[in-house]
């Protein structure tokens, strides 16, 4: 009998939450076949089986969080007959007798179809067919009972609308992870906020002029976001304190700039990382962003994709927002939101009024690491770079 243990899924990962079990007790399992999903730090990984055999016991239920090394399941290995005998004898001595496998219920296509259609839990029915088989008539009879029950229930209950007011949504493992981390961050990290506005009229022109040729050449859309990323990365190079982590033993200043990018999916927020963003051009950033967003939306992110970020940039403008107050993504010291680009009348340096494309940039910092002075300089640099785009620039 082999044990399946919670693996160490990353350097600083000490525990993991079980997602869905992909195999049931009694199922045959091949070597390397995925057994169970594990959710850690916003990534879902599948734990493969190291052995070929039968899954005989599941020790940790879905949704439970356990430490690395905890036994998750037991697998009865299948080996060539010549090897099997001694192994079995040995395991029988070491462990208590293994419970005989329960015979899996067999259902006819009609029974399965009806059960699915009417959401009948077949485990709750008793069968009248051969050897206790649940027949189509058994399912139909149970439906009739339910319907009759509903009929008789109706007049007894006064019509109350409250019953339908609240709908409980089960918490998925990833939702739980987000909740825990955000609570920790909001509670433990002293956040400070700042907003600057930048005139990006030139940037808008650069993008307008380049977007068609870029799409034809690169095969992906040219959005504003890679321009902002480029500017932020360049600013981070000059102000490395924004690219750091607070620890009680000292502030860790990261050499590489690994940009976390918030990507919203329907049911969760994931923050995949573009590693070594400082080595990429605007075009390179656009491609990296496209690749990682696709993986995020299709649930194909790897552990590497979500590890090692040093600063987060958040495209809240995509939702139409003009102001936001982001919560830091620990252990990072800064998170920057790019809001919507909006045309507004603006007073220019020569007191003339003009219509310009304006954008708000909102930053949250870990006040333990940084003060307003450095942050202000960092934001001013970003603003300056954004406003200084050369309109003839080719991307």
């Amino acid at each position: 009998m082999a044990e399946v243990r919670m693996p160490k899924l990353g350097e600083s990962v000490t525990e993991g939450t079980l997602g869905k079990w992909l195999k049931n007790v009694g199922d045959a399992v091949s070597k390397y076949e995925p057994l169970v999903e594990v959710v850690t730090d916003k990534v879902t990984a599948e734990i493969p089986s190291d052995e070929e055999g039968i899954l005989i016991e599941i020790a940790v239920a879905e949704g439970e969080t356990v430490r690395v090394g905890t036994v998750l399941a037991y697998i009865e290995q299948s080996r060539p007959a010549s090897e099997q005998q001694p192994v079995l004898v040995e395991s029988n001595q070491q462990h208590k007798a293994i419970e005989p496998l329960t015979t899996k219920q067999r259902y006819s296509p009609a029974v399965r179809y009806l059960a699915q259609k009417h959401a009948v839990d077949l485990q709750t029915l008793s069968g009248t067919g051969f050897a206790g088989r649940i027949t189509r008539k058994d399912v139909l009879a149970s439906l009739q009972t339910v319907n009759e029950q509903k009929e008789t229930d109706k007049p007894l209950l006064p019509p109350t609308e409250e019953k339908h007011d609240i709908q409980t949504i089960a918490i998925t493992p990833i939702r739980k992870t987000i909740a825990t981390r955000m609570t920790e961050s909001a509670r433990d990290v002293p956040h400070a906020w700042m907003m600057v506005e930048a005139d990006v009229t030139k940037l808008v022109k650069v993008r307008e002029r380049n977007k068609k040729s870029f799409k034809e050449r690169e095969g992906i859309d040219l959005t504003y976001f890679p321009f902002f990323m480029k500017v932020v990365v360049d600013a981070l190079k000059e102000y490395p304190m924004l690219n750091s982590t607070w620890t009680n033993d000292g502030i860790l200043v990261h050499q590489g700039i690994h940009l976390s990018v918030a990507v919203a999916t329907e049911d969760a927020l994931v923050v995949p990382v573009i590693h070594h963003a400082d080595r990429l051009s605007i075009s390179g950033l656009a491609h990296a962003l496209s690749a990682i967003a696709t993986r995020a939306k299709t649930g194909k992110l790897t552990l590497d994709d979500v590890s090692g970020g040093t600063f987060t940039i958040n495209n809240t403008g995509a939702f139409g927002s003009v102001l936001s107050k982001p919560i830091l993504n620990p252990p990072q010291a800064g998170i920057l939101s790019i809001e919507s680009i909006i045309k507004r009348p603006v007073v220019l340096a020569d007191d003339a009024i003009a219509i310009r494309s304006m954008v708000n940039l909102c930053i949250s910092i870990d006040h333990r690491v940084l003060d307003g002075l450095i942050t202000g300089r960092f934001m001013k640099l970003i603003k300056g770079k954004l406003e200084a785009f050369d309109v003839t620039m080719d991307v």
Partner: protein
Amino acid sequence: MAVKLFIDAIRDALFHAMREDEQVFVLGEDVGVRGGVFRVTQGLIEEFGEQRVMDTPLAESGIVGVAIGAAAMGFKPVAEIQFVDFILPAVNQIISEAAKMRYRSNNDWTCPLVIRAPFGGGVHGALYHSQSLEALFYHVPGLKIVIPSTAADAKGLLLAAIRDPDPVLFFEHKGMYRLIRDEVPDGEHIVPIGKATLRKTGDDITVITYGLMVHYALEVATKLEQEGIHAHILDLRTIAPLDREAIIEAARHTGKVLIVHEDNKTGGVGAEIAAMIAEEALFDLDAPIMRLAGPDVPAMPYNAGMEKFYMLNPQKIEDAMRNLARF
């Protein structure tokens, strides 16, 4: 309307058709003076004369060949093959000529031919007088095959067959000639070819069958009713073309299907019906499709004990129906 024997209903249809349409004539071995070995054609020669009730030599290929030629010229021949066992010398005429005439001539020629033949066992007919050969023909496109189970249907289907513009094989279970009697409408009475009918409704098991086996199944169903097993019984009436819609509907009704026929199991009509249900009604099935059929033995034995072993009977059907109900 009067209660008539199965055999009398067939004769009724022949008289009716021949009186109505001068192009209709019968031919076969001993159909004239003798009135047929089973007396189906008794009285016809007296009324219609030997030009329309023709005794032929013992040559089935000739009987069918002559009939095909006459049909091509606009007659409506009703050929009798004395026993279906004897039809084999005429198979080339039936399959290569009659079945293909419309197709081969691009609709210029049709073959409004009916071939009547008694089939089936259980009458100590042994090797050459007991066979069921419907499966041999139902594989062939261009042929219609009719097997009635009641006197009323025998009359209605035979009239429909005679009026059909294409070849129809009309098989009569010889055990039913003087066993089955029911109310037969007088005069004009047509039962459409290709339509099955429900003989009984129930919600536990579906039995799909035809011919004599319909009566056995009904007899068993009445008995099982007292035990709370309710059978749904579909009488196919036409083997080719099969009534696909009725078969699927009957199968869906209970999700448990038993197909019964006296003909051999392998490659029998039941195999086609089972495949049809599996193709179209998988998600309504609550049990494996069951077949109860004659054994794959070369011929019906003469010896009474052996014949009993070979033939289907109510007891065998009862066992099968009960097993399916219990599943």
